[in-house]
C-alpha cells in the first residue's frame, strides 16, 4: 500500500519528482546538438554517393567549412564529455566514504541489472509482471556507457584523422585505413542507436506517447509517471522518508511548453538524420 503515502503528501507541496539538475540538462542539450551537427557533417562525407550529400555540402559552403564545423562540434562534444568526467569524479571524491559503487545511485552496472534484463524479457513474453526499477534502469546505464565507448572510439579515431602528421610519425599508415572504418562505422552505430533505440525508449513507446518526454529539459517527472517508471526507487524513498527532498514544484507552463517545442524539434532533426543515414546505407548496399 506504499503508493498511498505519496497521495497523502500535503497539498501544494509539488507534484513532480526531480531527476536531472540544471547543469546536466544543459550538458545534455549541448551534447545532443553537437552530436547532431557531427552526424550531419560526417554522414555527408560517409555517404558521399547519395544525392543528398552534395546538397548538404553546398549548404555548408564546401567540405572545408563543413570540416571546420565538424571539428568545432567535436570540440564542444569532447569538452562536455571531459567536464562531465571532472564533475563525476569530484562528486564521487566528495562522497568517497559513503558512495556505494554498486548502489542504486551509481551508474555502474550491477547484478540487479542482469536480473532486470531477464525480468524485462519475461515480462515481454507475458510470463511475469514488469520489474520494478530503481533510479537507473539498465537501458539508461547502457545509454550512459555507450557514450563513453563512443567518445573513446570516435573521439580517438577522429583525432588521429584530424592530425595525420602526428599520427603518422608514431603509427604505421594502416592506422588511417582502420581509423577511417572505425570512425564511420561507430558513427553509424551511434546515430542509428540514438535515433531508433534511445528515441523509442524515451519518446515513442506506448506509455510515453505522445512524444516528447520533457524530463531532460524540465528536470522533473510527474509523480504518477515516477511511480510507474521507477517504482523501486519510489518505494525506497518513501520507506526512508527521503521522497520529500526530491519533490519539486510542477514546472511553469512556459517551461513545459518550451521544452515540448525543443523536444519535438530535436526529435524531428534526429529522425530526419536517421532517414538520411538509411538512404545512404541502402544506396551503398545496393551498389556494392
Amino acid at each position: 500500500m506504499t503508493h498511498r503515502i505519496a497521495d497523502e503528501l500535503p497539498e501544494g507541496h509539488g507534484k513532480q519528482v526531480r531527476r536531472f539538475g540544471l547543469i546536466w540538462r544543459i550538458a545534455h542539450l549541448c551534447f545532443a546538438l553537437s552530436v547532431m551537427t557531427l552526424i550531419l557533417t560526417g554522414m555527408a562525407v560517409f555517404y558521399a554517393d547519395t544525392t543528398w550529400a552534395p546538397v548538404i555540402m553546398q549548404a555548408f559552403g564546401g567540405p572545408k567549412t563543413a570540416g571546420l564545423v565538424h571539428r568545432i562540434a567535436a570540440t564542444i562534444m569532447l569538452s562536455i564529455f571531459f567536464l562531465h568526467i571532472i564533475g563525476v569524479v569530484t562528486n564521487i571524491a566528495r562522497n568517497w566514504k559513503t558512495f556505494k559503487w554498486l548502489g542504486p545511485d551509481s551508474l555502474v552496472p550491477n547484478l540487479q541489472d542482469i536480473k532486470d534484463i531477464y525480468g524485462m524479457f519475461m515480462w515481454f513474453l507475458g510470463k511475469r509482471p514488469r520489474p520494478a526499477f530503481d533510479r537507473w534502469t539498465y537501458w539508461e546505464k547502457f545509454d550512459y556507457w555507450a557514450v563513453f565507448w563512443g567518445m573513446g572510439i570516435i573521439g580517438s579515431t577522429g583525432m588521429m584523422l584530424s592530425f595525420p602528421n602526428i599520427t603518422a610519425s608514431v603509427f604505421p599508415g594502416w592506422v588511417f585505413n582502420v581509423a577511417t572504418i572505425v570512425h564511420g562505422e561507430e558513427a553509424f552505430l551511434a546515430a542509428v542507436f540514438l535515433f531508433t533505440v534511445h528515441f523509442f525508449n524515451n519518446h515513442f513507446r506506448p506509455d510515453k506517447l505522445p512524444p516528447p518526454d520533457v524530463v531532460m529539459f524540465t528536470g522533473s517527472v510527474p509523480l504518477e509517471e515516477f511511480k510507474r517508471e521507477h517504482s523501486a526507487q519510489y518505494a525506497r524513498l518513501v520507506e526512508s522518508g527521503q521522497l520529500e527532498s526530491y519533490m519539486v514544484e510542477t514546472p511553469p507552463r512556459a517551461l513545459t511548453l518550451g521544452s515540448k517545442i525543443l523536444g519535438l524539434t530535436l526529435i524531428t532533426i534526429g529522425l530526419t538524420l536517421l532517414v538520411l543515414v538509411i538512404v545512404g546505407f541502402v544506396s551503398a548496399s545496393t551498389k556494392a
Partner: protein
Amino acid sequence: MMLTNRITRLTRLVSFSITVGAIFLTGSLAAFQAEAAAKISVGKHQIEAPPPKLDNATCLTCHDASKGDIKGPGSDSSSKPVHGVSSDKFSKSVHGEMQCVACHKDIVDSSAPHKKGPAAKADCVTCHLELWETAKKDNLTKEKARLGVVVKNIETYKNSYHARPNKEDKTRVNAACDDCHSSHTFNVPPQGTSRRTEWHLTIPEVCGKKCHSDELDEYATSVHGKKVLEEKNQKAAVCIDCHTTHGIANTSKDTFKISITENCGSCHTENLKSYRDTYHGQINKLGYGYTAKCYDCHGSHGILSPKDPDSKVHPNNRLKTCQKCHKEATQGFVTFSPHANTSNIQKYPQVWVVSRFMWALLAGVFAFFWLHTGLWWYREAQDRKTRKNHPDRRKETK
C-alpha cells in the same frame, strides 16, 4: 603440244575476261559517279551540280597525293606545294561520295593558281546542322541516327576548350573539327569492330602530332603509351579515354578534374571503388577537386606501373608524392593504403579484422536492442489495454 594449246586457250580466255571486266567496270564507275553527282545535287539542295570540268577526277589530276610531292604554280612565278588528297582513302571515308567542290565552294576553275570565287569554303558545322534538320523534316531520324550524334557532338564541342578562340591568334579556335577529323579521310569505324581498334590506336598521333607534342612524348614513355604505341594494345588508354572527346575542357577546371577520375575508373573499376571509400574519394564524389585524384599520386601522361621504381607511387618515391599536398607528411604516410578493401585478408589484414569486428558489434547491438524494442512495444501496448502493469494494480492483485 596439248599443254601449249591449253595455255594459249587460257591466255585468250583471260584477256577476254579482262577486256569485258574492264568495260563493265568502267561503265559501272561512270554510272556510280553520275549517281554520286546526282545525289549531291539532290541531297544537298543548296549545292549546284558541278560544272563538268570540276568533277573529282579533274581535281585529282593535280591533287592526287599518291603522285608524291606535288607542286603547282603559285600566285607569283614560284611554285608551291599542292594540297594532296589520297583518292583511295577519300573514297573510303564518310564523305567519299561527295564532290570536292561541294565543300571547296571557293574553287570555281580548274586552272592553277585558282582564282577564288565569291562563295566561302563550306564549314562542317553549318552543313551538318542542315543535314540533321533535313533528316528531321523527312522523318528519317532513325535511319540517319548518326547525323544526330554528330549534331550532339557539335553542341558538346561548342562548350569545350577546343572551341574557344586561340590565345595567340584570336581569329581561329584552339582546335576545329578538321584538326582532329581529317575531312578527306574521316571515318570512325563502328564500335566493336577490329577497324575501330586500329582507329583507337591512332588517337595519340592525332592529338600529339600537330598540337600536343610534349604530352605525346611523355605519353610515349608511360605504361599506357608503351602498350598502345609499342604493343598495339587496344585496351590501354589513349588521350580521349581520360580527357573525353568533344567536350574536352581545360584541365584546371574542377568539374573536369573530377570527371577524369571517373574516366580512369571506367577501366580501373576496383581501384575507383576503393578510392571512393577514402576521404580523397569521398570529397571528389561530392564534387570538389582539391583532394588527391588518380593523377595526383600516379602521374598523368607519364603514368607508370606502381611496380616501376620510377613510379610516383613506388614505396621509395611515395613520401615525396604525399608531400606534394601534405607538406608535413611523416613516414607513416608511406604505408597508408589509398586503395584498401575489406575483403583481402592477405593484403590488408588489419582492415579485414577491424571491419569484421565493427560489423559484429553493430549486428550484436542492433539485434539485441531492436528485439528489445519490438517486444517492449508489443507488451506495453498489450498492457495498456488492461493497465495491469500499473504498480498499484499489481500490488493490489497480489
